């Protein structure tokens, strides 16, 4: 529509956002929780003058800096890259709404980077008190970053009153912000403890030191678990009705929700069985790695669900997955999809001048006069710009061809004309009846025949 659409075969472009986001959050939450862990524990180790613990914390700080400052920062930029490529309209809305929230978050990020390096590289050279202050600067800055980013991502699920007043504060203080801040804080605390368990299991041989780390890390882990549960409940309570319904109605989300509960449950059980009941278990790298693995599964699944429940929106009630604003749909339907899109219109102008009117508009009445092959091609373009956000073609992510396998053109036509009523997780059809016919031609072309050999035979056509 407003921007060119990027076709990524099989995967679809938005799935790249999901892929990079999931990888990023696994490190970013550790960057926050691990920062708070280092702040609390370094202060504790200085207070108790525990040299062995300080030596371990320094080793952990090296691992922490290597993972979070490098990989975390780059994958964070990677999210910027992919959202700009795969969802430019939504990105534009977010950027213009939250530029100063992001700019403020940037200041915290800068403080994080500087304090992380000073903390690690000047270990043993700075006075203890100053050293502890530096790591607290890191921890607080990292958490402040989390608060701002969580509020922005929460806006995508609940823009609150912003639609009415377009006010920055309405957007930032949306109903989903607090639940997501609580659950992400919990996720950060829990995940960082799991990282610490694994790191300690691999690098520490001293049983006494190991026991200390275990007991110290279990508290934030349990606190994190409580925050996750509380934030999760609030998240569900404040979900928009369509998102709540999607959780029940979409089979994929059913499976993912089950996976989320199972993985989170396993983590809680392992924490209970391990650090709480059998403190020695967590010393074995295998056990520690298992707990972290289930934590990663739980967090990745939660992130995917958070993205998926928004359908058909990218920003709830603001930007649709079909890359248009909700406010634009009626006008686009009236004017025509091909005519309304900057890039679709330019494509038609360049490649199908015969359908352009004398005054330079797409003449909808001429579309159906095109030869069948051209109708299919133009239908393919409509599919790309209207549908490819959520559907691959033949194979891959939710491919459309198997979804309409064996359908008659009439069935496809009925679906296209009533997209959002057939399935509320799909956007409304935003084109003219003639354009719907082009899309029907394309979908009929890519749709495979009904699988052969099925009984009973097709009762209407008599074909197997």
């Amino acid at each position, binding site marked *: 529509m407003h921007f060119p659409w990027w076709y990524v075969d099989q995967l679809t472009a938005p799935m790249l956002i999901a892929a990079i986001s999931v990888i990023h959050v696994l490190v970013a939450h550790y960057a926050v929780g691990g920062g708070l862990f280092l702040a609390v524990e370094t202060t504790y180790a200085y207070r108790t003058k525990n040299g062995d613990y300080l030596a371990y914390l320094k080793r952990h700080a090296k691992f922490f800096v290597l993972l979070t400052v490098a990989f975390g*920062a780059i994958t964070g930029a990677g999210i910027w890259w992919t959202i700009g*490529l795969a969802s430019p309209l939504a990105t534009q809305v977010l950027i213009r*709404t939250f530029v100063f929230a992001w700019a403020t978050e940037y200041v915290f990020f800068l403080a994080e980077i500087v304090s992380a390096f000073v903390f690690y590289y000047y270990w043993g050279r700075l006075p203890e008190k100053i050293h502890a202050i530096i790591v607290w600067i890191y921890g607080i800055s990292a958490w402040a970053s989390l608060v701002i980013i969580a509020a922005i991502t929460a806006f995508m699920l609940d823009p609150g009153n912003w639609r009415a007043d377009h006010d920055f504060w309405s957007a930032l203080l949306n109903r989903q912000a607090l639940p997501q801040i609580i659950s992400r804080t919990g996720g950060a605390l829990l995940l960082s403890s799991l990282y610490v368990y694994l790191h300690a299991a691999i690098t520490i041989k001293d049983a006494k030191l190991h026991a200390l780390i275990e007991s110290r890390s279990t508290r934030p882990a349990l606190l994190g678990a409580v925050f996750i549960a509380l934030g999760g409940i609030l998240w569900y309570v404040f979900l928009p009705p369509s998102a709540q319904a999607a959780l029940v109605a979409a089979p994929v989300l059913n499976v993912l929700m089950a996976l989320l509960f199972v993985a989170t449950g396993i983590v809680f059980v392992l924490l209970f069985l391990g650090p709480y009941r059998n403190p020695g278990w967590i010393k074995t790298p295998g056990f520690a790695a298992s707990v972290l693995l289930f934590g990663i599964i739980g967090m990745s699944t939660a992130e995917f669900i958070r993205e998926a429940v928004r359908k058909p929106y990218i920003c709830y009630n603001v930007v649709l997955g079909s890359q248009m604003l909700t406010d634009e749909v009626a006008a686009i339907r009236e004017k025509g999809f091909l005519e309304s899109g900057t890039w679709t219109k330019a494509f038609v102008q360049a490649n199908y001048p015969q359908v352009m009117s004398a005054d330079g508009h797409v003449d909808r009445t001429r579309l159906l006069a095109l030869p069948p092959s051209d109708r299919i091609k133009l239908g393919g373009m409509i599919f790309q710009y209207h549908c490819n956000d959520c559907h691959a073609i033949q194979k891959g992510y939710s491919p459309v061809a198997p979804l309409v396998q064996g359908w008659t053109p009439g069935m496809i036509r009925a679906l296209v004309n009533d997209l959002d009523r057939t399935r509320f997780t799909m956007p409304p059809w935003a084109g003219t009846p003639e354009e719907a016919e082009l899309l029907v031609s394309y979908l009929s072309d890519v749709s495979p025949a009904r699988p052969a050999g099925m009984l009973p035979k097709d009762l209407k056509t008599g074909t197997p």
Partner: protein
Amino acid sequence: MMDPKNLFDTSLPGGMPAPIWFVELFKWLGFTLHEVPMNLWYAGIIVSMLLYVFGSEHGRQFGSRLMAQMPVIIALGINFGIVPLLFIQVGFGQVFYPATILMAWFWLSIIAMLVLAYYGVYLYAYGQAEQGPKMPRWKRAVGWVSALLFITIGFVFANAMSLMENVKAWPDLWQQHSFHGATLGTALNVADPRLWPRWLLMFGLALTTTAAWISFDSAWFAGRESDAYRTWTKGFAWKLYLVGAVWFAVAGAWYSFGTWPAETKQAMFLSPWAVLTVVTAAVPCAVLALLWFARQREGEISRGWASLIGLAQFGVLGVNAASRQVVQHLAFAPYFDISRQPTETQWTPLVIFLVAFVLGLGLIAWMIYQVGKVSGKTQTATT
């Protein structure tokens, strides 16, 4: 024939959240700040690698120093890069998104290359810290790979930035790299004559920044190195700056005289922008002169003089960034005028950001002060 003007969307939602001058100012400031560390990895890593193979003992010493500093430099460079990226999207989404989407796979490859290059630098830096001259060859090779990856990243960036300005090329690139009217993201702006000198120009500039850094590092951070090393840096910094300045001048001349469209030439070579063009071309000479004077003086370079060199080089980068911004505007002019976009300034968030910015800078200054205090003590103790 497709008219590129038809690819411009003028109906984007929402107004600018800040005054135009504010967006322009932070885009300029952010890019100038980003240029300092970016120049150091762009040219500095390959210079360090070359010095290890062909350099003198002091040359290798400098290369080791720079590579040891590089993880921090890269982190700051990535961080500073966020600012111009943010403000370019605020003000120039109409050109930024289409250009990067047309070359999406290459644009996205920057992230993968950056991960590899950054960890390569870490591997090299830790290798030389822990194993010194006995560092295995494969780790040295990783250093070379990182250097080449950063240069490649520079090439992809030059592509994206030049494609933003080369709106005329969009229709053909789109048609050639599309599937049912959707872009495949496999286009590159290599047919644009502006791309190559622009890429090379930036490398010349990066050489000059690396040279200025040699002086700055020598005066401020190389207290534990020998007097002979610090004296050597004066001569080497001057020579490297000279090479960079000549490179910058040649590529700059090619870029401006050979590839600018007539309208850009007319604007940049006549008043009032002619002053900026002349200053952009001439200002590296000022830093070169400062380095030359430093070289003529006895002993090692003073901290004051090195700071002056650093500040002057920051000015070189700032003037260059300003010129880029003006040329960018001239390229966009036939298609859209940023100043005509509606503005709905978010004053309270803007003020909060500025307060956070000042406090954040204060906090960072305090941390650097603490580091300076213990570094000073260490150096005094060593002496």
